[in-house]
């Protein structure tokens, strides 16, 4: 299977069938059907909180947390860039820490608390990091932005908790939110438009709070 074939078929199915077929995103459907009649595809119930709201779903075990958010729960703020942990567009917080939602299965999150960009703040009630991104133009096309913001909020929390990074000189001293620290810690979020320096400005403003 090629990823391209995969993508085009699943997009069409998602458009046509909505949530019911959303779990097919990562399956080459023709091939999957030939090997596995649909009624034997394992599904499982799972319940967790998203942005403070309890959700309960029956999902194909293959469904990632990312596809669950976007296709089942229609929380399309979280984006799919690479689907392989390489870009950070899918970053959300689970139980208070940032993760790549593309490399996690929905069924692994029973009982968890998930926060997406929609939960962080809303247009009339922006999170300070969202407001700072707007003020400093921390984006161009905006596709990577929800992931950047979830990561940026987490980065400041991680520094606050004293978690060291690759550029921390003194591992046993206090951590500081310097530009170098923030840049290194944001390296898991790629921006195709290259808005990095404005993102750095936005983060510095929030860090200096």
């Amino acid at each position, binding site marked *: 299977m090629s990823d391209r074939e995969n993508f085009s078929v699943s997009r069409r199915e998602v458009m046509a069938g909505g949530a019911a077929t959303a779990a097919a995103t990562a399956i080459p459907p023709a091939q999957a059907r030939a090997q596995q009649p649909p009624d034997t595809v394992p599904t499982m119930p799972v319940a967790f909180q998203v942005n403070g709201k309890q959700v309960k779903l029956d999902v194909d075990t293959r469904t990632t947390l990312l596809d669950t958010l976007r296709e089942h729960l229609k929380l399309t703020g979280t984006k799919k860039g690479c689907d392989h942990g390489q870009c950070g567009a899918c970053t959300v917080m689970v139980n208070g820490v*940032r993760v790549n939602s593309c490399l996690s*299965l929905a069924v692994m999150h029973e009982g968890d608390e998930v926060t997406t960009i929609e939960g962080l703040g809303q247009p009339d009630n922006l999170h300070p990091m969202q407001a700072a991104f707007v003020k400093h133009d921390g984006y161009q096309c905006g596709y990577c932005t929800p992931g950047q913001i979830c990561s940026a909020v987490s980065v400041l929390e991680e520094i606050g908790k004293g978690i060291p990074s690759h550029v921390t000189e003194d591992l046993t001293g206090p951590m500081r939110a310097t530009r170098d620290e923030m840049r290194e810690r944001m390296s898991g979020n790629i921006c195709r438009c290259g808005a990095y320096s404005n993102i750095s400005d936005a983060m510095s403003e929030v860090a200096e709070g």
Partner: protein
Amino acid sequence: MRAFTYERAGDPAGAAKAVAATKGAKFIAGGTNLLDLMKLEIEAPTHLVDVQDLGLDKIEDTDEGGLRIGTLVSNTTLSAHPRVRQDYAVLTRAIQAGASGQLRNKATTGGNLLQRTRCPYFYDPNMPCNKRRPGSGCAAINGASRQLGVIGTSDKCIATYPGDMAVAMRLLDAVVETVKPGGDTRAIRIADFHRLWGDTPHIETVLEPGEMITAVTLPRPLGGKHVYHKVRDRRSYAFALVSVAAVIQPDGTGRVAFGGMAPRPWRVEAADALLPRGAKAVIERAFADARPTPDNAFKIPLAERTLAGVIAEARS
């Protein structure tokens, strides 16, 4: 991705038994390597046994003055642990040189040790690869091999073990603790854990089917200066071309291990002894049997220069 069933195990021996009982079953921990490979159908487990509920997420002091790290401890938690930062700083440095913040939050100790190679042909299902499809050949040997191994490789496979954390663990002489499906436990020296490829590059470690990692233990701290230098194509969020982990004492003696060079973290104890004589002597001994390709022969002088930088930093 192929369809699979999923369960959460309740205790370590039960998890091992569950994997042994179903043909094609695998453990899943953070999922950051396994799911990546499952999406490409390079891995196609029929059943996943999730080990997140087993309570193996603690870091404890051992009676011998070392540290026992539960297999589910995340890379972030391990690197930030006060005793690791204080006594095993090379481990914090190695972990923080790998992957991204998001990935390190999910990556577990056991899953990290078992992460599979990043050989580009292994990742491309259209190419022959003895590791992915035993007997199909190796596309890398006459292909683009810049990132691949220079020593410990074979004429069946020249891939590397790609990780960072394990390089520090090899340096520190860590021990991998496991439980087998029957409930027996064993302790495997990390030096013996990853196999050289030989004729069976698809068999990567000495773990038996269903055998589960429960913890990694570190012996007493070594003191000295702890340094990890990683050379890569970009400054962050990239795998190593070459990495050097070292603990160097004030008198210039110490130990050194290399990443990005071989099927496992590469350490030659006889080369450690040459550290006081400088980088050249160490590299000549540690890589005496190297068989690089024209594409990756640069790694040996690069390792020498990287080690020279490490020694200089340790002295400063």
